[in-house]
């Protein structure tokens, strides 16, 4: 099915802090965001073109194709065997 594509949005503690008009919290917002960006669990998306990232996607797609191919060969084999 068609996928709805939306621009990537990230929560912005900076903007929230700016609304409060507090420069200190603005600065801490930057720091907080920087920390989150360094945390792979919060920001797990690797850099575009990362070889390991691309390899993971290729392995996944290949696994699906191989699995489906095995299923088709199995079904055709059983059918042709006349069991």
């Amino acid at each position: 099915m068609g996928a709805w594509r939306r621009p990537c949005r990230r929560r912005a503690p900076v903007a929230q802090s700016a609304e409060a008009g507090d420069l200190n919290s603005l600065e801490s917002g930057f720091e907080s965001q920087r920390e989150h960006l360094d945390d792979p669990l919060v920001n797990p998306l690797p850099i575009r073109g990362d070889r390991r990232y691309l390899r993971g996607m290729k392995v996944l797609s290949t696994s699906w194709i191989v699995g489906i191919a095995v299923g088709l060969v199995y079904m055709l084999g059983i059918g042709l065997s006349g069991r």
Partner: protein
Amino acid sequence: MIGVRLRQHSLSIFFAVLFVLALIGQSVAGLISFNEDQLAHGAAAVTWIDFVTSSEFVVDVAENWQSEYLQFFLFIFATIWLVQAGSPESKEVGHEGIGSDEQQKVGRYAEPESPSWAKATGWRQTVYSNSLLITMGAIFLLSWLAQGIAGQTVFNAEQAEHGQDLLTLGEYLLSADFWNRTLQNWQSEFLAVGSMVALSIVLRQRGSAESKPVGTPHHEGAVSAE
């Protein structure tokens, strides 16, 4: 990092797990149903291994596979040329067709990170440009063939049991049994796809990639609402 990797592929992994569980469930339920029928006819019950390696099991699996892949084959193909205003499943009205090389980022318009066959010219670019449709179509045809072959075995076993004539594969592919199995699956797939296209114009699911954002006007489709 394993958790991160799993999260990146959670959608496909989720469906792979569901598929395996459903297939196991089908094999167990199918075995019970088959053995009830065997006992009712005074025949011996079979084991799970015997059942999952029989045409009885294969024909039921294959007839569902072919209809699902036909659904996606047709959906991918139809959405090249046909549109539905307001549906996130469709391109915008006026954008029908295969698009220019520049829009599709192929050949000299390919980006540095584009797949190598998208950068290529000639047959490799043509094949890659249609690779999703080709793959879905091939899986559909092969699973439909598997349904036909396994279905013939099952049908002929029943015919023999009742002392009736056996059918060749060609005769079976023209039989009411084959087309009943085929069309009962197709109708439900076409209904599901059509309703998804139509209902997604006015209905929303917050957070789903298959829906427009909740506040998007009904008349906006996938492209204009981005």
